């Protein structure tokens, strides 16, 4: 957040229209359902804020480390919900966690300040990412709902938080947790989110960190905004220089004493490497640098190469440190690809991609006692203006939507890689118990960090456009998103370095300034969602489990298919069984004019490869603001030349864009065979 407001175009002098028109979100309350909050952090001061919005009905629960006066005009409410956790896991260990809204983990403080942290200067993490830290909606109010504990985040507590948030009068719910994907009527988060949406609350949720594999996206209900993660134009290079002259790209935010300048250290691979001189120990555990797996005699004074996986990245550094290693290189495996995350390691350490990891292991494997492998780590600090950016983070969960492929997920991406944000004073930046360092800000990565960016931006939009529904706000964010990076190419996938697609970035990367004035929006009512669920062939009972509405599906099913939900993207799925030469479908959409008055929009179509996409009518003439007009999109797809193998798929994407010369309303069209 020392970079993301600028990267998103929010910073300007005078303040951007979005911030000015929304008064920085000052009348809005954002609920952060997470690990609680550190109320005394500078990011949550209330200087210069007006009175708490009169609609606010919440409370400030107190408890250990969280006195009754912890709330203020910024942090307007705080609650904690542990009954579900304790019903399953037994009474909590109150020496390890506290029965209050206080954040003893750090995650909730971090996400809260991304959404709505105040301007704080100077801000940095161990000297990295120095600047002014600011949340997306710096004057929006925060309400913390602590539901995540050492044992996880339990549905019954999450629902209690949703219930309280709706009753308290929040405007946006930010939920950076996820899990398995199940049918919507069995998904407590989807059920809670539906109730919140029905109450006019925007629900923004993390897509999950299960990428880069397909079908990994979570929190996929269409009434939620599902947010993936991208990079910014900022990097923290920490390259590995090898004794053979090679330099391998790495990243790190290690901030302690550096390695000796100009000195080359012996390199050792922690895993088994039979025949090589430099193997620290044998076995899988050692390769991962799991606790207790390293032989101190083999690693003392050396830079240890650890494979990524199983334990946390920072914990590996701690294991190496305790075994006497002087540094660490964390190497991706083939399944990790080239995705890198900068961590606050407890010793000089860096992370390298899979290709560099292979080179490193080969180099070490070819060494001898007489000619050992050597290297060092060159920490370069903070680089700005990096190209290309944004890049889709390797870990960001990917579509298609496992529950309803008719709805493209994730919806969009936002900054989620190497994000500096507030951090509690009682927790070390590496997030491991042995880390005694203290930092006011920490740099973390995850769709957890992307989600509150959208939550804060949604608050700004809602403040500027109070009559817009949650679906309209989501539509504005999606139809104005971009897919080109700062090198003017289509965004690339960090894990492979090749061009990313709609299952990676959804509608694209958020562009808040354009979202402020989208021209047209796709609006959705609760009844539309009922029809959508009917078209998923849910039973009436299943639909009532989500919507508390009696569902008469006869009309809905006559009206078409699940893809006819008035969603800001269109996804067609065809079974390529070899029996038909072409396949057809159509989508009906209705757009609402929010551009201010008379306008004529014309459609341009970029058809997915191998498909013919037509729009009817090709022109929409609006006479007034708020007017709704409908159009039909027909998709005709040639069957793949060869019959496809069972279980395989082919994806092509295009877009329908409506433009009046001032606005461009982009709607992705995805075809999957």
């Amino acid at each position, binding site marked *: 957040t020392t970079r993301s407001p600028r990267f998103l175009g929010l910073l300007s002098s005078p303040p951007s229209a979005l911030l000015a028109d929304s008064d920085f979100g000052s009348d809005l309350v954002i609920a952060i359902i997470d690990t609680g909050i550190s109320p005394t952090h500078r990011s949550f001061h209330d200087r210069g804020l007006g009175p708490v919005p009169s609609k606010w009905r919440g409370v400030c629960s107190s408890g250990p480390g969280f006195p009754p006066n912890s709330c203020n005009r910024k942090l307007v409410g705080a609650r904690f919900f542990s009954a579900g956790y304790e019903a399953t896991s037994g009474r909590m260990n109150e020496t390890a966690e506290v029965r209050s809204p206080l954040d003893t983990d750090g995650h909730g403080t971090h996400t809260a300040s991304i959404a709505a942290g105040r301007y704080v200067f100077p801000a940095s993490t161990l000297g990295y990412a120095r600047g002014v830290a600011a949340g997306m909606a710096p004057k929006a109010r925060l309400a913390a709902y602590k539901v995540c504990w050492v044992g996880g985040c339990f549905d019954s507590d999450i629902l209690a938080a949703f219930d309280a948030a709706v009753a308290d009068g929040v405007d946006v719910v930010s939920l950076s947790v996820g899990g398995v994907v199940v049918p919507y009527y069995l998904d*407590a988060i989807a059920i809670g989110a539906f109730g919140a949406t029905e109450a006019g609350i925007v629900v923004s949720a993390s897509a999950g960190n299960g990428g880069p594999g397909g079908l990994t996206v979570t929190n996929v209900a269409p009434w939620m905004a599902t947010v993936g993660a991208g990079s910014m134009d900022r990097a923290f290079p920490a390259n590995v220089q090898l004794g053979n002259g090679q330099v391998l790209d790495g990243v790190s935010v290690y901030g302690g004493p550096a390695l000796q300048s100009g000195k080359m250290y012996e390199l050792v691979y922690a895993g088994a490497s039979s025949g090589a001189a430099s193997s620290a120990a044998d076995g899988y555990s050692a390769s991962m640098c799991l606790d207790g797996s390293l032989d101190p005699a083999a690693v003392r004074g050396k830079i240890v190469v650890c494979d990524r996986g199983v334990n946390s990245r920072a914990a590996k550094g701690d294991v190496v440190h305790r075994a006497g290693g002087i540094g660490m290189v964390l190497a991706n495996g083939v399944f990790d690809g080239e995705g890198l995350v900068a961590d606050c390691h407890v010793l000089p350490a860096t992370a390298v991609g899979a290709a560099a990891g292979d080179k490193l292991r080969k180099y070490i494997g070819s060494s001898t006692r007489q000619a050992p492998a050597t290297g060092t780590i060159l920490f370069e600090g903070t680089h700005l203006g990096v190209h290309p950016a944004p890049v889709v983070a390797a870990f960001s969960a990917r579509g298609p939507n496992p529950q309803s492929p008719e709805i493209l997920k994730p919806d969009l991406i936002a900054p989620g890689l190497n994000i500096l944000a507030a951090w509690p004073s009682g927790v070390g930046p590496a997030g491991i118990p042995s880390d005694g360092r203290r930092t006011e800000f920490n740099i973390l990565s995850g769709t957890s960090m992307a989600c509150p960016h959208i939550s804060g931006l949604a608050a700004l939009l809602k403040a500027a456009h109070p009559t817009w529904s949650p679906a309209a706000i989501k539509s504005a964010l999606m139809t104005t998103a971009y897919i080109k990076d700062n090198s003017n190419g289509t965004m690339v996938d960090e894990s492979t370095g090749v061009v990313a697609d709609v299952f990676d970035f959804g509608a694209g990367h958020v562009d808040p300034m354009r979202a402020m004035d989208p021209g047209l929006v796709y609006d959705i009512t609760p009844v539309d969602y009922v029809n959508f669920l009917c078209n998923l062939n849910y039973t009436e009972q299943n639909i009532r489990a989500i919507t508390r509405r009696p569902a008469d599906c006869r009309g809905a099913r006559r009206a078409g298919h699940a893809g006819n939900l008035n969603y800001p993207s269109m996804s067609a799925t065809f079974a390529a069984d070899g029996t038909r030469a072409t396949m057809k479908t159509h989508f009906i959409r209705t757009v609402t004019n929010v551009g201010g008055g008379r306008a004529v929009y014309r459609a341009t179509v970029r058809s997915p490869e191998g498909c013919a996409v037509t729009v009817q009518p090709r022109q929409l003439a609006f006479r007034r603001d708020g007017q709704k007009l409908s159009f039909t999109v027909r998709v005709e797809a040639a069957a793949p030349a060869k019959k496809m193998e069972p279980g395989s798929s082919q994806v092509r994407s295009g877009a329908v864009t409506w433009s009046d010369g001032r606005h461009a309303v982009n709607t992705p069209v995805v075809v999957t065979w």
Partner: protein
Amino acid sequence: GGGEERTFIVRVDADAKPSAFPTHAHWYEAAVMAAEGGGGGGEWREGGPLIHTYSAAFHGFSARMSPAAAAALAEAPGVAAVVPERVRQLA
């Protein structure tokens, strides 16, 4: 079968509360106890069987019960859904 107790989230039609119960919580408690074994078979817990009650995002409650009791509860009048709890992780 009976199986080990776990947490279930129960969604109800709020309007279906029998007038004999002064509050929704009374209704929920009685429904869980009845499902557990005829009004007294469930394990007694301090504070009753309910973990949370919900009334704003939706109407219902969460409670620990056996899968058999949950199945019985799903058939009870006014109950719209019984959903097994899942544990989520930070992203």
